[in-house]
């Protein structure tokens, strides 16, 4: 059975959706969990297995975080790095990077990530 996970939004953690059958994941909301490693544990574990399984050749990631703290940013960077590696061998991960208009730092971060991850497709979507 393809993996499926959905977590509701809390005051400090985002909505999470992983729908392996649709080759899709989404994070939406604010992200400053009490224990960032613990919060991302399942998500990361699934992502590693998915990307390395050899069963899939694409992944779409809707990145709709309004705010994430500094420890989450490190983990998110590592996740994108894995997707970038995945995209090197004829496979393609795509990140839809949603930014509220006027949020220039999140836009800047998009530019820096976009420049850094040359094989990953990162698309800016302004809300």
């Amino acid at each position, binding site marked *: 059975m393809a993996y499926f996970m959905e977590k509701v939004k809390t005051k400090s953690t985002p909505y999470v959706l992983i729908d392996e059958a649709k080759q899709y994941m989404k994070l939406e909301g604010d992200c400053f969990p009490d224990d960032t490693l613990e919060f991302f544990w399942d998500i990361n574990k699934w992502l590693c297995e998915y990307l390395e399984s050899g069963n899939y050749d694409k992944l779409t990631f809707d990145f709709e975080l309004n705010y994430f703290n500094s420890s989450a*940013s490190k983990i998110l960077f590592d996740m994108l790095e894995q997707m970038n590696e995945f995209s090197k061998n004829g496979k393609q991960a795509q990140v839809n990077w949603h930014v509220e208009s006027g949020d220039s730092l999140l836009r800047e971060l998009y530019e820096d990530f976009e420049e850094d991850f040359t094989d990953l497709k990162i698309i800016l979507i302004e809300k």
Partner: protein
Amino acid sequence: MLLNTLELFDKTKKLDVYIAYKGIVRIDNIEELSVALRSQMAFDKLSQDTFRAVFSIFVELMENVKMHSAVPKGCIIVTSQDKIYHVQSGNLMETQNIEELKKRINHLNSMDKQSLRNYYMERIKKNNPNPRSRGAGIGLIEIAKRASEPVEYDFIPYDEHLTFFTAKVTINNDNIERGAV
């Protein structure tokens, strides 16, 4: 003791106090205060950048207290006056760690926005040998990136092992139309 609330109201005139908290700092306190701060700021006409700056500096400072304070208590104060926001935190820390922290803040204060942007990416790429150290110092860079002025700080000796650390961060907002009564 009863505070003279008229005096408080009158003397502070243009100063709005959004949050003044002293107590236990755990995730539930951070969550509740972040909701309060968000609804306070909803009355201000803020650019997305100003809102994000105040909000993220508030969360980073509170997390700093949560993770690094020598005792599980700390203070956080958020005010606005004359189109300027201040976020200020205070907590006890081990005196032996202050030199390192001072050095890091001074280093960040000496950088311009572009250098901070580059430094942030540099740090985020580094593999952290100790994942439990969490942000690996990225929190302070995040604060410096979003601040309008250099981060002000003070270290006040408390007892033979502990020092009280205060940080004050300024965020300018040209769009704010609240304040004067």
